[in-house]
């Protein structure tokens, strides 16, 4: 295995949770809801996935637990912001505080335990393709899910009726309501999908990335995922591009350090953030394209008139 391939493998592991959490948040935001609680849902997913795996011995049950906990936790956000029309920004931040607290509390006795790593699923024949085989066809279930989810979300948003409805809810909830679409129900489902994806991203952290539970182990990745949605200008495949770009820059700086180039590590560590900004500037000069894809009703509460 060449060094380039090795780097790419590391990048894939690092980028997968970002892509997963971001694709979920993208759907949430496309429905017009801004949930800043990704970090909290992610860390809940990580804790619950790890605990379930340790209890049952099966990382697949762990994955389910991660997804379920993320979705349930997001329901709390949904209830506050959709039913009680509380402020979305503040509620999302409060969700993060709560998530860090609750996960720390339930995971306290699991710190230091060595977990079970999610096994690889090897595709016969395909995995023997030189270079691409090990990268793409010798991965774990969550990686395959991340790609499938992005493809699925793309299809759903732009090729299905339900996706069209969801987008119309995000662009103008009053027109959507006038057309007979149930705005609140659509948004509830979108929020839960976002939570489930963030939970799955958390499961990746505690079952694949580093099979263990540590308090606050998401370490800011939920925030990066939030930024990626903006970076992608709410288009699914750009999430993959953004996630892998971010992952690639942050990983290669570690390799560069090990290689021994004498640049202060703080500057190297700042590169992924700067790179993301620069690329966003380059792709967002077209004002009309950006406006078309931005959900116009993002962050605005909806209360049906009776």
């Amino acid at each position, binding site marked *: 295995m060449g*060094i380039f391939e*090795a*780097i790419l*493998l*590391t990048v894939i592991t*690092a980028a997968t949770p970002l892509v997963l959490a971001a694709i979920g948040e993208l759907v949430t935001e496309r429905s017009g809801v801004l949930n800043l609680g990704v970090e909290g849902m992610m860390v809940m997913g990580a804790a619950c996935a790890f605990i379930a795996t340790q209890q049952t011995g099966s990382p697949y049950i762990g994955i389910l637990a991660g997804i379920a906990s993320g979705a349930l936790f997001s329901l709390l956000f949904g209830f506050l912001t959709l039913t009680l029309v509380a402020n979305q920004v503040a509620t999302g931040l409060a969700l993060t505080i709560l998530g860090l607290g609750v996960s*720390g509390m339930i995971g*306290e006795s699991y*710190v*230091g*335990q*060595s977990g079970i*790593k999610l096994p690889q699923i090897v595709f016969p024949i395909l995995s023997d393709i030189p270079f691409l085989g090990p990268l793409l066809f010798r991965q774990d279930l969550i990686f395959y899910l991340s790609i499938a989810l992005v493809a699925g979300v793309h299809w759903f948003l732009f090729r299905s009726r339900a996706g069209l409805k969801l987008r119309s809810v995000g662009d103008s909830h009053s027109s959507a309501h006038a057309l007979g679409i149930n705005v609140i129900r659509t948004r509830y489902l979108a929020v839960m999908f976002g939570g489930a994806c963030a939970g799955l991203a958390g499961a990746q*952290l505690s079952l694949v*990335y*580093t*099979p*263990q539970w*540590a*308090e*606050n*182990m998401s*370490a800011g*990745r939920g925030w990066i995922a939030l930024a990626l949605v903006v970076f992608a200008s709410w288009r699914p495949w750009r999430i993959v591009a953004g996630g892998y770009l971010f992952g690639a820059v*942050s*990983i290669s700086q*570690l*390799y560069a*350090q*090990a*290689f*021994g180039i*004498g640049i*202060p*590590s*703080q500057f190297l*560590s700042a590169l992924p953030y700067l790179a993301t900004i620069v690329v966003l500037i380059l792709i967002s000069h077209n004002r009309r394209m950006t406006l078309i894809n931005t959900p116009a009703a993002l962050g605005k509460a909806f209360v049906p008139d009776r």
Partner: protein
Amino acid sequence: MKKILFALATTAAVIGFSAGASAADKAKICFVYVGSKTDGGWTQAHDLGRQELEKALGDKIETQFLENVPEGPDAERAIERLARSGCGLIFTTSFGFMDATVKIAAKFPDVKFEHATGYKTAPNLATYNSRFYEGRYIQGQIAAKISQKGVAGYIASFPIPEVVMGINSFVTGARSINPDFKIKVVWANTWFDPGKEADAAKALIDQGVDVLTQHTDTTAPMQVAAERGIKAFGQASDMIKAGPETQLTAIVDTWGAYYIKRTQAFIDGKWETTSSWDGLKDGILTMAPYTNMPDDVKALAEATQKKIESGELKPFTGPLKKQDGSEWLAAGVSSDDGTLLGMNFYVEGVDDKLPQ
């Protein structure tokens, strides 16, 4: 609502007072932690020390702690709260608490303070530290014996003297066995981020190191080493569970002995300010069992440990050169503690640059 609140307040006050009275005859020993007491690393080691202290002197003292205290003004407030709540002796367990501890110590002359890894003292403020580097010297020797390629990977947190000292000691130990030994350093710029530490481990292993050591707090690098089939050293606590066939040994912080010693002195009224820098011989750090290595390497490690404990061997003893090739210590000369505590240069064999 107001009435209820008032009722709550008064009831609680009564309960609070009665609880306070019963505990007044026991000395209160308090701890301020920078991390979570179950972080699996630095803070957990201090909390294990606190638990040992409770076990040993539990009939004469009670302990109390505040965890996840941010450095800066929050630390000042946390320490002051403990001082006001009747703590007689307060251990502040992070370098970043230094100035906060100094300020509060000046304000509460009757309370005794102990600050870990700092250098400012006062009549009621002592400092304590552990010679972790002694353990790293042994690790370096083991690494030189085990490594086929003569290159070790070192995951470092932040460039502070403590960490630089560890890197240098490791290299010095390794070079005492294999004069051509080299290490590669990756700065993770974090003490605690399992994902990033794992990435750093992968970066090092992919570039050909075949033994790994870390100065960050989680077991993630150990797990990666286990997966890739190379050997590694644990940090702060015994990480054997994360790599039963991987861990060679680990530096285990065992603060308990020190906490018991100082608390006993405090109870006896014999507490005095000191700057103590204990090592292997005092039991403030211990080596986890030497595992996953051939018997001759194990014997070498044990012999070195004995020599360090008896004082026969001092890790930083000349001839030693700095990274740029200039002489640091002449043959037979050992470094003074002052140079070590402010260490900001590499010895020969480190493949990295320090920020100046």
